[in-house]
Protein backbone atom coordinates (compact mmCIF):
# COMPACT_ATOMS: atom_id res chain seq x y z
CA UNK A 1 0.00 0.00 0.00
CA UNK A 2 1.49 3.24 -1.07
CA UNK A 3 1.03 6.43 0.87
CA UNK A 4 -1.29 7.73 -1.85
CA UNK A 5 -3.64 4.81 -1.49
CA UNK A 6 -3.80 5.15 2.30
CA UNK A 7 -4.47 8.87 1.93
CA UNK A 8 -7.16 8.16 -0.62
CA UNK A 9 -8.92 5.56 1.52
CA UNK A 10 -8.95 7.69 4.67
CA UNK A 11 -10.10 10.76 2.79
CA UNK A 12 -12.83 8.88 0.95
CA UNK A 13 -14.10 7.55 4.27
CA UNK A 14 -14.27 11.12 5.56
CA UNK A 15 -15.97 12.29 2.37
CA UNK A 16 -18.68 9.62 2.46
CA UNK A 17 -19.20 10.06 6.20
CA UNK A 18 -19.61 13.82 5.92
CA UNK A 19 -21.96 13.46 2.96
CA UNK A 20 -24.09 11.05 4.98
CA UNK A 21 -23.93 13.44 7.93
CA UNK A 22 -25.18 16.21 5.67
CA UNK A 23 -28.03 13.97 4.61
CA UNK A 24 -28.98 12.76 8.08
CA UNK A 25 -28.60 15.68 10.43
CA UNK A 26 -31.82 17.29 11.57
CA UNK A 27 -30.34 20.74 11.92
CA UNK A 28 -29.65 22.61 8.67
CA UNK A 29 -26.64 24.39 10.20
CA UNK A 30 -24.96 21.06 10.95
CA UNK A 31 -25.75 19.95 7.41
CA UNK A 32 -24.03 23.03 6.00
CA UNK A 33 -20.95 22.50 8.20
CA UNK A 34 -20.74 18.83 7.19
CA UNK A 35 -20.91 19.93 3.58
CA UNK A 36 -18.02 22.38 4.13
CA UNK A 37 -15.93 19.51 5.45
CA UNK A 38 -16.91 17.42 2.44
CA UNK A 39 -15.83 20.17 0.06
CA UNK A 40 -12.49 20.51 1.80
CA UNK A 41 -11.93 16.76 1.49
CA UNK A 42 -12.70 16.90 -2.20
CA UNK A 43 -10.23 19.76 -2.51
CA UNK A 44 -7.54 17.48 -1.08
CA UNK A 45 -8.54 14.89 -3.69
CA UNK A 46 -7.91 17.50 -6.35
CA UNK A 47 -4.44 18.04 -4.93
CA UNK A 48 -3.83 14.29 -5.08
CA UNK A 49 -4.94 14.35 -8.71
CA UNK A 50 -2.49 17.11 -9.55
CA UNK A 51 -4.98 19.96 -9.92
CA UNK A 52 -3.84 22.62 -7.44
CA UNK A 53 -5.70 25.50 -9.05
CA UNK A 54 -9.00 23.66 -8.90
CA UNK A 55 -8.30 22.69 -5.29
CA UNK A 56 -7.80 26.29 -4.25
CA UNK A 57 -10.83 27.41 -6.24
CA UNK A 58 -12.86 24.72 -4.54
CA UNK A 59 -11.87 25.99 -1.10
CA UNK A 60 -12.36 29.67 -1.82
CA UNK A 61 -15.51 29.48 -3.92
CA UNK A 62 -17.32 26.42 -2.58
CA UNK A 63 -16.21 26.08 1.01
CA UNK A 64 -15.84 29.82 1.37
CA UNK A 65 -18.32 31.84 -0.63
CA UNK A 66 -21.13 29.44 -1.41
CA UNK A 67 -21.38 27.82 2.00
CA UNK A 68 -21.20 31.17 3.77
CA UNK A 69 -24.13 32.23 1.62
CA UNK A 70 -25.97 29.07 2.67
CA UNK A 71 -25.27 29.66 6.36
CA UNK A 72 -26.33 33.28 5.99
CA UNK A 73 -29.67 32.30 4.48
CA UNK A 74 -30.27 29.55 7.06
CA UNK A 75 -29.70 31.99 9.89
CA UNK A 76 -31.68 34.73 8.16
CA UNK A 77 -34.72 32.51 7.78
CA UNK A 78 -34.30 30.84 11.16
CA UNK A 79 -35.02 27.61 9.32
CA UNK A 80 -32.61 25.37 11.22
CA UNK A 81 -35.06 22.57 11.77
CA UNK A 82 -38.42 21.93 10.23
CA UNK A 83 -41.18 20.09 12.01
CA UNK A 84 -41.06 16.63 10.56
CA UNK A 85 -44.37 15.98 8.91
CA UNK A 86 -44.18 12.64 7.17
CA UNK A 87 -46.80 12.85 4.45
CA UNK A 88 -45.65 9.97 2.29
CA UNK A 89 -44.61 7.04 4.49
CA UNK A 90 -43.41 4.92 1.58
CA UNK A 91 -41.22 7.69 0.24
CA UNK A 92 -38.09 7.03 2.29
CA UNK A 93 -37.69 3.28 1.66
CA UNK A 94 -38.47 3.77 -1.99
CA UNK A 95 -35.90 6.55 -2.25
CA UNK A 96 -33.24 4.45 -0.54
CA UNK A 97 -33.96 1.52 -2.85
CA UNK A 98 -33.83 3.70 -5.96
CA UNK A 99 -30.65 5.38 -4.75
CA UNK A 100 -28.98 2.01 -4.19
CA UNK A 101 -29.96 0.89 -7.69
CA UNK A 102 -28.60 4.16 -9.09
CA UNK A 103 -25.29 3.73 -7.29
CA UNK A 104 -24.84 0.17 -8.55
CA UNK A 105 -25.73 1.09 -12.12
CA UNK A 106 -23.55 4.20 -12.15
CA UNK A 107 -20.53 2.36 -10.82
CA UNK A 108 -21.04 -0.54 -13.22
CA UNK A 109 -21.52 1.61 -16.31
CA UNK A 110 -18.74 4.04 -15.49
CA UNK A 111 -16.26 1.24 -14.94
CA UNK A 112 -17.25 -0.97 -17.85
CA UNK A 113 -18.30 1.52 -20.51
CA UNK A 114 -16.19 4.59 -19.84
CA UNK A 115 -13.08 2.38 -19.97
CA UNK A 116 -10.89 4.49 -17.72
CA UNK A 117 -7.88 2.28 -18.15
CA UNK A 118 -4.87 2.76 -15.98
CA UNK A 119 -3.87 4.42 -12.76
CA UNK A 120 -3.99 8.04 -11.90
CA UNK A 121 -0.61 9.27 -12.99
CA UNK A 122 1.55 10.24 -10.13
CA UNK A 123 1.28 13.99 -9.98
CA UNK A 124 4.96 14.64 -10.36
CA UNK A 125 6.66 17.39 -8.50
CA UNK A 126 5.99 19.62 -11.49
CA UNK A 127 2.23 19.18 -11.31
CA UNK A 128 1.75 21.37 -8.25
CA UNK A 129 4.13 24.14 -9.17
CA UNK A 130 3.96 27.55 -10.73
CA UNK A 131 4.84 26.69 -14.39
CA UNK A 132 1.98 24.23 -14.38
CA UNK A 133 -0.43 26.92 -13.22
CA UNK A 134 0.91 29.16 -15.97
CA UNK A 135 0.15 26.46 -18.53
CA UNK A 136 -3.39 26.20 -17.16
CA UNK A 137 -3.84 29.94 -17.49
CA UNK A 138 -2.56 29.88 -21.06
CA UNK A 139 -5.02 27.16 -22.03
CA UNK A 140 -7.87 28.91 -20.23
CA UNK A 141 -7.33 32.26 -21.91
CA UNK A 142 -6.39 30.98 -25.35
CA UNK A 143 -8.49 27.91 -26.11
CA UNK A 144 -11.37 28.64 -23.75
CA UNK A 145 -11.62 32.41 -23.93
CA UNK A 146 -15.18 32.52 -25.27
CA UNK A 147 -16.64 30.19 -22.61
CA UNK A 148 -14.81 32.27 -20.01
CA UNK A 149 -16.49 35.46 -21.22
CA UNK A 150 -19.86 33.73 -21.41
CA UNK A 151 -19.37 32.66 -17.79
CA UNK A 152 -18.86 36.26 -16.79
CA UNK A 153 -22.12 37.20 -18.49
CA UNK A 154 -23.82 34.30 -16.71
CA UNK A 155 -22.60 35.59 -13.35
CA UNK A 156 -23.85 39.07 -14.22
CA UNK A 157 -27.27 37.70 -15.16
CA UNK A 158 -27.42 35.68 -11.93
CA UNK A 159 -26.57 38.78 -9.90
CA UNK A 160 -29.25 40.85 -11.62
CA UNK A 161 -31.74 38.00 -11.22
CA UNK A 162 -31.08 37.66 -7.50
CA UNK A 163 -31.48 41.40 -6.97
CA UNK A 164 -34.72 41.49 -8.95
CA UNK A 165 -36.11 38.53 -7.00
CA UNK A 166 -35.29 39.97 -3.60
CA UNK A 167 -36.36 43.55 -4.38
CA UNK A 168 -39.39 44.72 -2.46
CA UNK A 169 -42.16 45.44 -4.95
CA UNK A 170 -43.79 48.83 -4.89
CA UNK A 171 -47.50 48.50 -4.44
CA UNK A 172 -49.16 50.14 -7.42
CA UNK A 173 -52.50 51.61 -6.46
Amino acid at each position, binding site marked *: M*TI*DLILFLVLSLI*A*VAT*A*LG*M*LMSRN*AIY*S*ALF*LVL*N*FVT*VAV*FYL*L*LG*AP*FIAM*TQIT*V*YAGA*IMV*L*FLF*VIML*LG*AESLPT*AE*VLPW*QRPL*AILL*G*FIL*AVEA*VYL*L*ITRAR*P*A*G*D*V*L*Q*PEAVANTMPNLR*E*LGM*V*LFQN*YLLPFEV*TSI*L*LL*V*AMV*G*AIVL*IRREKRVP
Partner: protein
Amino acid sequence: MVPINYYIILSAILFTIGVLGVLIRRNALIIFMSIELMLNAANLAMVAFGSIFKTPEGEQVFSGQIFVFFVIAVAAAEVAVGLALIVEIFKSKRSIDVDQMNSMKG
Protein backbone atom coordinates in the same frame (compact mmCIF):
# COMPACT_ATOMS: atom_id res chain seq x y z
CA MET B 1 -0.76 5.20 -7.44
CA VAL B 2 -4.48 5.10 -6.95
CA PRO B 3 -6.45 3.24 -9.62
CA ILE B 4 -8.81 5.64 -11.32
CA ASN B 5 -11.70 3.27 -10.72
CA TYR B 6 -11.53 4.13 -7.02
CA TYR B 7 -12.08 7.79 -7.78
CA ILE B 8 -14.96 6.94 -10.10
CA ILE B 9 -16.62 4.73 -7.49
CA LEU B 10 -16.23 7.41 -4.83
CA SER B 11 -17.72 9.96 -7.22
CA ALA B 12 -20.70 7.71 -7.93
CA ILE B 13 -21.28 7.14 -4.22
CA LEU B 14 -21.19 10.86 -3.46
CA PHE B 15 -23.54 11.52 -6.36
CA THR B 16 -25.96 8.90 -5.07
CA ILE B 17 -25.93 10.43 -1.59
CA GLY B 18 -26.84 13.73 -3.24
CA VAL B 19 -29.72 12.09 -5.11
CA LEU B 20 -30.92 10.51 -1.88
CA GLY B 21 -30.85 13.91 -0.22
CA VAL B 22 -33.06 15.35 -2.93
CA LEU B 23 -35.44 12.41 -2.69
CA ILE B 24 -35.68 12.12 1.10
CA ARG B 25 -35.31 15.52 2.67
CA ARG B 26 -38.16 18.03 2.68
CA ASN B 27 -36.15 21.09 3.66
CA ALA B 28 -35.53 23.14 0.51
CA LEU B 29 -32.14 24.31 1.78
CA ILE B 30 -30.93 20.75 2.32
CA ILE B 31 -32.17 19.76 -1.12
CA PHE B 32 -30.11 22.62 -2.47
CA MET B 33 -27.04 21.46 -0.59
CA SER B 34 -27.56 17.98 -2.03
CA ILE B 35 -27.50 19.46 -5.51
CA GLU B 36 -24.18 21.08 -4.67
CA LEU B 37 -22.92 17.70 -3.52
CA MET B 38 -23.93 16.16 -6.85
CA LEU B 39 -22.14 18.88 -8.81
CA ASN B 40 -19.10 18.25 -6.67
CA ALA B 41 -19.16 14.53 -7.34
CA ALA B 42 -19.30 15.19 -11.07
CA ASN B 43 -16.37 17.58 -10.75
CA LEU B 44 -14.35 14.93 -8.96
CA ALA B 45 -15.02 12.45 -11.77
CA MET B 46 -14.01 15.01 -14.37
CA VAL B 47 -10.72 15.85 -12.69
CA ALA B 48 -10.00 12.14 -12.23
CA PHE B 49 -10.61 11.40 -15.90
CA GLY B 50 -8.59 14.44 -16.90
CA SER B 51 -5.61 13.34 -14.85
CA ILE B 52 -5.04 10.06 -16.71
CA PHE B 53 -4.62 11.63 -20.12
CA LYS B 54 -1.41 13.14 -21.43
CA THR B 55 -0.57 14.68 -24.74
CA PRO B 56 1.84 12.71 -26.94
CA GLU B 57 4.60 15.02 -25.74
CA GLY B 58 3.87 14.04 -22.16
CA GLU B 59 2.28 17.35 -21.21
CA GLN B 60 -0.63 17.48 -18.83
CA VAL B 61 -4.06 17.96 -20.41
CA PHE B 62 -6.01 20.76 -18.74
CA SER B 63 -9.41 20.48 -20.38
CA GLY B 64 -10.96 18.54 -17.50
CA GLN B 65 -9.77 21.06 -14.94
CA ILE B 66 -11.01 23.98 -17.00
CA PHE B 67 -14.42 22.40 -17.36
CA VAL B 68 -14.56 22.00 -13.58
CA PHE B 69 -13.71 25.67 -13.29
CA PHE B 70 -16.75 26.52 -15.41
CA VAL B 71 -18.96 24.17 -13.43
CA ILE B 72 -17.92 25.95 -10.23
CA ALA B 73 -18.83 29.31 -11.77
CA VAL B 74 -22.23 28.00 -12.86
CA ALA B 75 -22.82 26.55 -9.38
CA ALA B 76 -22.11 29.95 -7.84
CA ALA B 77 -24.64 31.60 -10.15
CA GLU B 78 -27.17 28.88 -9.41
CA VAL B 79 -26.78 29.31 -5.67
CA ALA B 80 -27.28 33.06 -5.88
CA VAL B 81 -30.55 32.75 -7.80
CA GLY B 82 -31.78 29.69 -5.91
CA LEU B 83 -31.27 31.16 -2.47
CA ALA B 84 -33.01 34.35 -3.59
CA LEU B 85 -35.95 32.19 -4.65
CA ILE B 86 -35.96 30.34 -1.32
CA VAL B 87 -35.93 33.60 0.63
CA GLU B 88 -38.80 34.88 -1.49
CA ILE B 89 -40.83 31.68 -0.96
CA PHE B 90 -40.17 31.89 2.77
CA LYS B 91 -41.44 35.47 2.83
CA SER B 92 -44.77 34.51 1.32
CA LYS B 93 -45.32 31.08 2.91
CA ARG B 94 -43.35 31.34 6.20
CA SER B 95 -41.94 27.88 5.46
CA ILE B 96 -39.40 26.23 3.19
CA ASP B 97 -40.90 22.77 3.36
CA VAL B 98 -41.12 21.63 -0.24
CA ASP B 99 -44.38 19.82 0.48
CA GLN B 100 -45.95 23.18 1.18
CA MET B 101 -44.98 24.55 -2.23
CA ASN B 102 -47.96 23.26 -4.11
CA SER B 103 -49.52 26.36 -5.59
CA MET B 104 -48.39 28.41 -8.54
CA LYS B 105 -49.54 31.74 -7.15
CA GLY B 106 -48.46 33.43 -3.92
